[in-house]
């Protein structure tokens, strides 16, 4: 069995998402598709999975042309896909989820026993330990991902596409996933591994194809250095390390401090559990943790979007709990939300408007209820140039920009005014390596030159390491420990998984 993509081109209107891409996928091989977000990796894989029809080009299985009219025909051809966002029904059991869409039936009724047996068989064969009767919603993300893989395998997938599978995993879970991938490779499955993380590529890939701006720009070997891979991916040389002057000890005491903060979510569950920390002027505190362990709510509480049930947050000695979002922003908080599409941008509005989304009513941009379009456009021109936002024009709706450029719009807005504090969540999510370098530099500058406290929330451990002076690890709403940046990834990974600090950090 071999799978070949030949001359695949996909256009959306005038946009060329894929341009004459050739790709060969062989059994027993992990083929890594490396590229920035928006490079066209996902589009290509959606074509392969039958979700999009290519504008040009063909897909060949064993040299025969394959015509796909939907995922169903892709599955029939032995192609399986694990999406970045899982397609599972949380209230169903593992076995039921695996059976969904491919139901085992015995005399007109669902055959649950057969489904369970199938799940067990696959999990034993590839070392994918899963309880077929567990409710999917109760399982950790890493296990849910296994369910997705099992789902693909029970449909006899010979070609398995994993779309950014490590984005939601702890370092340990990533390691486990790699073990499973190696098992599958040994069993003859062809794996397409989509990622933009260089380290992972080096750890697992047999073959690397780099995609940039919709075209294949080259192939690489896992032995190539990360800098070489990054240069290929971005198209120029990139500095992977952030240059950071040492933090100066200040006698003033903390500029920002959180004391005994507890926050409930809408369902009344504790999501931030009695946490306390300080940030000194010019210091960068990184908050590490797997997505969904209270980081979001911590950030929203600082912004004033949700009111904590107890505890205090103070900036420059002034209590901020109870302030409205508008007042917090006016008081000088720069806030980059973790999900730009959901919280950071109005997709239908222009880039220029989005660049003043939380500044539109300030005297610089409006007076007596009327907006000053000239100044807003001038501001947009400046920000677009300064942050290298790639957009057709400042009137283009922000929703039409690529993910990385959307992120630059948000970052540009939040970091181009005098701040008293900066809070950035996932500042470089989906941003290319080049822009990442730029954003990181700006964050460091805000701390070191402006002497502001900076809080960086990220699920990317590499990003935390690159920026943080101290690392707070969150797990289930608690800060497990605040550790120095010299702490190993393994130890931080253990803390992220909820291990007790004494067990994780040997000090």
């Amino acid at each position, binding site marked *: 069995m071999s799978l070949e993509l030949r001359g695949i081109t996909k256009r959306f209107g005038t946009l060329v*998402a894929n341009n004459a891409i050739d790709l060969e996928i062989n059994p027993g091989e992990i083929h890594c598709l490396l590229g920035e977000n928006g490079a066209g990796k996902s589009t290509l894989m959606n074509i392969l999975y039958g979700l999009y029809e290519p504008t*040009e080009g063909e897909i060949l299985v064993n040299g025969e042309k394959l015509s796909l009219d939907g995922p169903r025909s892709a599955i029939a051809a032995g192609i399986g896909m694990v999406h970045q966002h899982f397609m599972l029904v949380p209230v169903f059991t593992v076995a039921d989820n695996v059976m969904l869409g491919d139901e085992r039936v015995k005399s007109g009724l669902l055959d649950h026993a057969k489904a369970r047996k199938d799940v067990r068989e696959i999990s034993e064969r590839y070392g994918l330990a899963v309880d077929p009767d567990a409710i999917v919603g109760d399982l950790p993300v890493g296990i849910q991902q296994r369910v997705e893989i099992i789902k693909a395998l029970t449909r006899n997938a010979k070609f398995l596409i994993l779309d950014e599978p490590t984005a939601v995993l702890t370092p340990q879970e990533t390691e486990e996933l790699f073990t499973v991938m190696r098992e599958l490779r040994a069993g003859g499955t062809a794996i397409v591994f989509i990622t933009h993380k260089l380290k992972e590529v080096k750890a697992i890939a047999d073959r690397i194809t780099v995609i940039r*701006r919709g075209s294949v720009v080259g192939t690489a070997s896992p032995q190539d250095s990360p800098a070489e891979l990054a240069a290929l991916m971005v198209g120029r040389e990139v500095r992977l390390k952030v240059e950071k002057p040492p933090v100066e000890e200040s006698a003033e005491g903390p500029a920002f401090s959180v004391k005994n903060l507890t926050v409930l979510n809408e369902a009344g569950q504790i999501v931030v559990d009695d946490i306390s920390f300080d940030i000194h002027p010019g210091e960068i505190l990184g908050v590490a943790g797997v997505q969904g362990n209270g980081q979001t709510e911590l950030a929203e509480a600082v912004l004033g979007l949700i009111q904590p049930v107890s505890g205090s947050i103070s900036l420059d000695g002034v209590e901020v709990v109870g302030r409205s*979002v508008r007042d917090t922003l006016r008081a000088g908080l720069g806030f980059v939300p973790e999900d730009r599409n959901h919280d950071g941008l*109005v997709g*239908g509005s222009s880039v220029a408007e989005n660049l003043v989304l939380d500044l539109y009513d300030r005297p610089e941009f409006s007076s007596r*209820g009327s907006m000053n379009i000239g100044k807003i456009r001038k501001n947009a021109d400046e920000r677009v140039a300064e942050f290298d936002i790639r957009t057709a024009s400042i009137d283009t709706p922000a929703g039409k920009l*690529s993910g990385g450029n959307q992120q630059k719009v948000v970052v540009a807005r939040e970091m181009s005014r005098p701040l008293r504090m900066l809070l950035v969540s996932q500042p470089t999510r989906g941003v290319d390596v080049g822009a990442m370098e730029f954003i990181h530099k700006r964050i460091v500058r805000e701390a070191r030159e402006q002497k502001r406290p900076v809080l960086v929330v990220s699920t990317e451990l590499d990003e935390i390491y690159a920026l943080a002076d101290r690392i707070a690890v969150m797990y289930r709403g608690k800060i497990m420990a605040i550790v120095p940046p010299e702490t190993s990834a393994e130890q931080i990974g253990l803390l992220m998984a909820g291990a007790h600090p004494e067990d994780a950090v040997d000090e």
Partner: protein
Amino acid sequence: MSETVKGSGATASEPVGKPADPERPGLGKRLVDQVVYGADWVVTLLAILLALFFGAILIILSDESVRGTFSYFFSSPGDAISASWDAVSTGYTALFKGSIWDPSHSWNVGSAIAPFSETLTEAVPLIFGGLAVGLAFRAGLFNIGGQGQLIMGAIVATWVGFTVTGPTFLAMILAVIGGIAGGAAWGAIVGLLKAKTGAHEVIVTIMLNYTALYFLAYLIGTDTFRDPDRQEPLSKSVSEASKLPKLLTWLTDGGSLRLNFALVIAAVAVAFVWWLLNRSTLGFELRAVGSNASAARTAGMSVAKSQIMAMLISGGLMGIVGASQVLGTANANNALTPDIDAGLGFAAITVALLGRASPIGTVFAAILFGALQAGGRSMQSEAGISIEIVTVIQALIVLFVAAPPLVRGIFRLKGSGSGDAALASKGWNG
């Protein structure tokens, strides 16, 4: 495989992006998005042509004598074709004559512009209504409570109208302001309930429509409102001073041209709403809240305030519709009747849809619908074609506009997917 772009280096420098987020928002949100960003002008134009085409088929089918000629279609197809052509051309000629310009009266300025005066007279309430619904759309709200808001506006305007008897111009302005206040208050209730309790505006507005309707029926029976000299349910007439003055009486002797001062107010309203949406900070908030409430909240905007303000202004605009119904020429008595709304609160929704919720688009849509209404009457009187066909044509236009892929399919247009071109060119006025 036919295009030349393949493999050329030129395309590499083009921007590359991801397709639209596969995550689908709710039906209401998608409807609003479709209305605001969906169809481009070409599609709208084709939708109108298509609707007229289906209207023509209906004209043919509804005419008995034409149907008769189809019974011997194969022996003499010419008869059927010419009869059909006659029916359709007579009908649409009457439509044109009744709405735009009647060449047979061209010797008299007053008569010649009478059809267009009628068109504008019909269009004016639709402009207010379309602006009202469109504004709410842009703030992410579906205001189908126009009926109730315009009834409340009409009630207050009538009360002011028969209470205040002069001086001439001022009384009229006061009555219109009363109408705005009545509609705005009724709309603000919806906004308040939505913002404070999360009650869905569609449900609330439907219920408030009934409340207003029966409140009106009750009021007409009370001593304060009831006209003691009349048998039928009718309120007292508004004072002469508070009536909307006719604009074109100087052109004709009899004063038969109905177009009144409401047109001037409509022009002001269009300019105001355009400014509000595109240039004011409040409009910026409304649009941001309407298209992404959680981003608006994160940016420090108050979603509750935006929703209340949107419904308040939307209701106020609907209130003007009610005021112009009573103070203008819509009913001969210039008084409240139980059917004072004339269904305008619902007609306004179709106007806003066709006008893509933009002020300028709403003006064109309202004039089109006004023309169909005015022309439909002469189609009925001169060509004997039922005026209901006009309603069907209006409905079909909106149907086709709401389904751009259908129109593109019929005319084999290249799909622009989600209307990229229209979006990219819209910019600030979007």
